[in-house]
């Protein structure tokens, strides 16, 4: 007996969910291909959990359509959807032992007891808990409880597997390990998985694609690389990794690139359909090069703050385009606060943000520290 997958795609078409006046999900559309792991990433309250619950059928959409595979499941009740969810609190049944917890969904579906037992065993083996079948949930560590919850969801071989911040109750070390295990199982079984997190590092680490949400809507969708290298707006730039958002000017350009002035520096940046005028530019902290001593022509800055963090140094540099947050791997040659340094930008890490509706202020307000 092995656990396989019946992976199906998930498609949202203009889905809206409103609780009275509160719109938790606002005309959201996306498609998740079968076998992919997609994370919903965003700050607290942006509608991630609600989106997940809409897929599971624990909430019903106010408007729009939801498809799983070819089927329109918009009105299908939770019990009839072939979707398994791993809850943030794990939600194990405290009066049932591990075997009974894992086998509950099979029992409900009317599977024969022996077959159900074998399947549960197999699911527990997958998550590495074969020996703990007789334990009660209260006698398990947080990480073990989490795996039981995963096994309980896997055992039904669902079309879609959902995780709502599954690692938030684990300590940092365990979090890293469990997320790798989850990813491994997901890839081995080829499960369609939707994974909610507000931790951008976790999202970058496990995802095939990331859907960044903001204020109940999608801010950007793409592969981790696309989001990191080409954020569509300053919110995404700041949320996925850190970014300094500065004002610049598009001097002109054509086709795929644009000439941009940032303070006294000029750069050619990739860009579609740029029109001359003011623009926002996102600069990654690790794309800023500092050089000690006064460099005649380039941009100059004054070190305001320097923090030693073991494998790198963090600086706050006061420049003509405002304060810049810098991450510098050259720990052997620290620069002291008060010194004047030359500032340069590496191309790969500077992005022209080409979104007319962009509002940098709001982005940095709603992103976590």
């Amino acid at each position, binding site marked *: 007996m092995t656990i396989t997958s019946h992976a199906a795609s998930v498609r949202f078409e203009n889905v809206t969910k409103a609780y009275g006046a509160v719109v938790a999900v606002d005309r959201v559309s996306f498609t998740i291909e079968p076998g992919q792991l997609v994370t919903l990433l965003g700050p607290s309250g942006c509608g991630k959990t609600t989106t997940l619950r809409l897929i599971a059928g*624990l909430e019903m959409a106010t408007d729009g359509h939801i498809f799983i595979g070819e089927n329109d499941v918009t009105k299908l009740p939770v019990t009839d959807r072939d979707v398994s969810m791993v809850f943030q609190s794990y939600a194990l049944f405290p009066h049932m032992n591990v075997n009974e917890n894992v086998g509950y969904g099979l029992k409900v579906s009317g599977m024969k007891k022996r077959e159900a037992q074998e399947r549960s065993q197999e699911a527990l083996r997958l998550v590495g808990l074969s020996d703990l079948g007789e334990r009660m949930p209260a006698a398990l560590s947080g990480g073990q409880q989490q795996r039981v919850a995963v096994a309980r969801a896997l055992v039904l071989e669902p079309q879609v597997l959902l995780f709502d911040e599954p690692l938030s109750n684990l300590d940092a070390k365990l979090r890293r390990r469990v997320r790798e295990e989850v990813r491994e199982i997901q890839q081995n079984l080829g499960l369609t998985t939707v994974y909610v997190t507000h931790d951008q590092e976790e999202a970058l680490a496990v995802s095939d694609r990331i859907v960044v949400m903001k204020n109940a809507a999608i801010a950007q969708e793409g592969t981790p690389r696309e989001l990191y290298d080409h954020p569509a707006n300053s919110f995404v730039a700041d949320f996925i990794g850190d970014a300094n958002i500065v004002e610049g000017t598009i001097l002109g350009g054509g086709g795929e690139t644009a000439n941009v002035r940032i303070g006294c520096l000029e750069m050619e940046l990739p860009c579609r359909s740029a029109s001359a005028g003011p623009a926002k530019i996102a600069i990654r902290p690790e794309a800023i090069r500092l050089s000690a001593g006064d460099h005649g022509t380039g941009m100059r800055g004054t070190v305001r703050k320097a923090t030693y963090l073991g494998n790198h140094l963090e600086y706050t540099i006061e420049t003509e385009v405002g304060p810049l947050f810098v991450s510098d791997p050259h720990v052997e040659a620290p620069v002291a606060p008060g010194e004047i340094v030359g500032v340069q930008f590496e191309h790969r890490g500077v992005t022209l943000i080409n979104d007319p509706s962009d509002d940098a202020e709001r982005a940095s307000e709603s992103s976590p520290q």
Partner: protein
Amino acid sequence: MMSFHRVLHDERVWSFALVAPALVTVGLLFIYPLGFSAVSAFSAEEGGWTFANFIKAFDLYSNDILFTVVIVSLSTVLIGFFAIAIGGYLTLGENPYAVAILKWLYRWPLFIPFIVAAQLMRTFLAKNGLMNNLIVGSGLLEPMQTQSFLDWRGIVITFVWKQTPFVALLVAGAMASLDRSMIESARNLGASRIRILVEIILPQVRPTIVVGLILSFVVMMSVLSVPIMINAQTPTMLTVDMAFRINAYGDYGVANALGFISYLMTGVVAWIYLRQGVRQGAAP
């Protein structure tokens, strides 16, 4: 001065001071009257020990003893059923308006004294009472076909009506404090609402249900007004017999013997209660 301070800081003294009022209350109001009535149940009028009171009590009232056990047990079972149904609907109900209305309505009988409840039921359940009038009015029965419910059924209905809210209140509270996502995860695994109630919720709130039912069992054992007002003919409940022995004959011996028998019945359920408490306390 020093030693006084030490006394003040001695935890044992404080903890004793804290439980002392409770101990005194239990002693004065429970142990003493219980002991007194037990002793007098076994005392002969001329002095000395005897079983005569019990023999007489069984002679005269064995039917009533049985009647009491059956009525109170049946009521307890029905109360349990309805309390679980109400709690279950409040926890799992789909229609928020229905849930809100039920939540608002079900507690009312709690605030009505037993004697008023009995009076209400008399006018409701009598042969030409409100219930039968409604049934006749709706054309379901002819006036001649109606019957009075003012017998054992009346007592059971009154008990259930009066005590269900109390147990439902406890049970609904316990159900509400369960982790919502546990119920949702059971739904997600495909379980129906009934199944969730029986397999997920009930096992976790069972201690609360047992406690609620035991408390209402004890209350029903000691209610005099309901059986007197609804059904004072034989067979009736022990409380009526005790009042009768005392009021009509001044026969405290047999009354105390009947009281002692009631104590034994409630003692059995109290024992279950205590065991439940011990098990809960011992649970990890």
